[in-house]
């Protein structure tokens, strides 16, 4: 394997958790709910998945535990913002703080433990193609799943009845309610889906990317996922593009630092963020209109009854 191939492989690994978490948040936001707690749900996913995987010595159980943890956190958020029509910004920030603290507690006994790498799935024949073979056809299951998930979310939102309902509710919940669409129910499931995705992204970080637990290991990836949704103008395809641009920049700046270009490392560390903003800015300029947020995003829904 050449260095070039190795770099490409690590880019995929760095991008996947961002993609998964951002897709979940995208669905939540398309339903009109802004959940700033992605970071908290993600880090809880990481802690719980790692704890479960070590305890039961099973990656599968770990993954399920991570998704459940994320969904449970999301359910708490849903109780606040749907049940009590609480301010979504405040509730989301609180969720992140709670998640960072609670995950430290849960993960404490597992600091220093390690997991074996998850075996990649090798598609015979195709993975032997030079350069792109290993990149596209010898990845772990999560990578394939994240691509499939992008397509499914896109199809769901734009091609299904239920997706239309969800978009309508996000666009204008007063109208949706007047038409008799189930605003609360749809938003509840959208929030839960977002939580489960954030948890899955956390599980990927702990079980595949680092294979150990350390407190606060998400290191702002939840926030980046949130930003990706905005920059991608609430479109799944663009989230995919954005996640990979960011992942690439993250990996390349590490190599650039190693190569000692004489540029301060702090500047290089900022490159991924700048690259993401720039690339997505260019995309949205070219695309012109209709990059607006869902009309009811972040507004508590209180029907008159």
């Amino acid at each position: 394997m050449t260095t070039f191939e190795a770099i490409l492989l690590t880019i995929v690994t760095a991008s996947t958790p961002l993609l998964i978490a951002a897709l979940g948040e995208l669905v939540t936001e398309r339903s009109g709910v802004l959940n700033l707690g992605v970071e908290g749900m993600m880090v809880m996913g990481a802690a719980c998945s790692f704890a479960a995987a070590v305890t039961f010595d099973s990656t599968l159980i770990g993954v399920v535990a991570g998704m459940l943890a994320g969904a449970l956190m999301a359910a708490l958020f849903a109780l606040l913002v749907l049940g009590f029509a609480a301010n979504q910004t405040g509730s989301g920030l609180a969720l992140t703080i709670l998640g960072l603290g609670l995950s430290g507690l849960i993960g404490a006994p597992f600091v220093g433990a390690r997991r074996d790498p998850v075996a990649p799935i090798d598609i015979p024949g195709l993975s032997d193609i030079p350069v792109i073979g290993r990149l596209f056809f010898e990845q772990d299951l999560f990578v394939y799943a994240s691509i499939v998930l992008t397509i499914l979310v896109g199809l769901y939102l734009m091609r299904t009845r239920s997706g239309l309902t969800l978009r309508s509710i996000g666009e204008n919940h007063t109208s949706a309610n007047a038409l008799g669409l189930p605003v609360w129910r749809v938003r509840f499931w959208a929030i839960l889906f977002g939580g489960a995705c954030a948890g899955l992204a956390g599980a990927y970080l702990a079980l595949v990317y680092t294979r150990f637990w350390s407190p606060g290991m998400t290191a702002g990836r939840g926030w980046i996922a949130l930003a990706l949704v905005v920059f991608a103008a609430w479109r799944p395809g663009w989230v995919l593009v954005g996640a990979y641009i960011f992942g690439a920049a993250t990996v390349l700046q590490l190599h650039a630092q190693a190569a000692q270009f004489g540029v301060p490392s702090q500047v290089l560390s900022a490159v991924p963020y700048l690259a993401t903003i720039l690339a997505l800015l260019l995309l949205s300029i070219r695309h012109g209109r209709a990059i607006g947020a869902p009309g009811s995003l972040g507004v508590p829904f209180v029907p008159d009854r």
Partner: protein
Amino acid sequence: MKADVPPSGPPLVELKGISKRYGDLLANDEIDLSIEPGEIHALLGENGAGKSTLVKILYGVIEPSAGEIRWEGQPITIASPVEARSLGLGMVFQHFSLFDELSVAENIAVALSDDWSLSTVRDKLGEISRTYGLALDADRAVWTLSAGERQRIEIVRCLLQNPRLLILDEPTSVLTPQEAEHLFTTLDRLSEEGCSILYISHKLEEVRRLCRRATILRAGRVVATIDPRASSAREIAALMVGNAVGDIRTDAPHHPQGETLRVSNLSMTPAGLHGQALRDINLVARAGEVVGIAGVAGNGQSELFAALSGERLADHPESIAINGKLSGAMGIDARRRLGAAFVPEERLGHAAAPTHSLSENTLISHAATEVSRSGFILMNAARRVARSIVQGFDVRTPEGDPQARKLSGGNLQKFVIGREIIRRPKLIIVDQPTWGVDAGAARLIRQALVDLAREGSAVVVISQDLDELFEVADRMAVIHQGTLSPLRPIGEWTKEAVGLEMLGVAQAQGGAHAV
């Protein structure tokens, strides 16, 4: 009184003793109402009379505190709009229940049951459009459509569900006269086919044109059920308001003189994504006259108001002159200091700060008067000004100095208009002065504007309400897609001519407006 054809079976729907209580407020008080099959029944009343509450109960959006609903003689409960629709109720909302970023077909599909796919919606849409003359393009995004087209979506949405009863809430408030006439034809046709229609309005003329029975609400109660064709508009208005509504006193204008406002060749690019550009606007308002600007919403009225008030500055200072001073590049406050006053369309949030008290709200436009001195607020003076506005303009307040958001729409509008008039401005520009305001308050506001003009100020009224403009304006122009027609004395306009200008066909037909 009865419908022309005596009903044979039970009424399609019957409301008995419907009440709805919000805290201390009784929004609906023991309301009885029955609608026969195929009947067009009017529900009349001022704002706040309880019309919207009643139809929301009927449509399952809110639940009644007491009372009974019978459908073809059977008592039922309607727990949600979905249940209402499955019974055969369709509703066209006053503030459309549409989704701006979705396409026409998507907007229709989302309200229908699950067995409608987008492609069947498209097919049916074409069919219904042809049958009822409701032209719509299935793939356009809603934000690109006119109000009339948006309303068509709502109507088609209902028709696709084969309704037995169609409820329309103030359907003509956003339409040109021609569009309204088109709607009436559609409704007549539906009624002939056996569909009942509940028509909510406060416009008497159209109720007399359409309906044989009208139920009149006042303060949550039914005050009468009448045949609107057998009563005069004045009698019906008296029933709605509870006392006779007087006409506006408009003495002949003493010869207006002096150009208080001159707008010359004003052009502007649209401010926002969905905005309208202004094209080469020319306008003169003289001291002592009311100038009316008519037009269908979204044709550049808000942009024109923003340009006149200084919320957006003109590219050339000479395109706007107030009292002879070139002020196109001046901000709002500088223009106020020249003697101008402005009342924007949106009362809450634009004309008044919702969570501030009325006295604090006087400060918004009174920076140059007695309420502040060298940057400090004189609260006593502000309270005094607020009190004199409240008294002078009959503003009904729940407490002494309440927050602006606690006032009802009509009372807040009286307050913001009063706040400007009390400064005795040389020029006042008002956008939609009586939008959503009840008849009593509307009359007071119009009278105050006319009186101000008669005292020698120039008054510019931008309004969608043609009746209002015919009542108050001395000269009028029509705005269409950012272009202003020539100003003509009000006597030279007919409603038809205005309608043609509103549709932008007058110029095309070679000046057909000069009737």
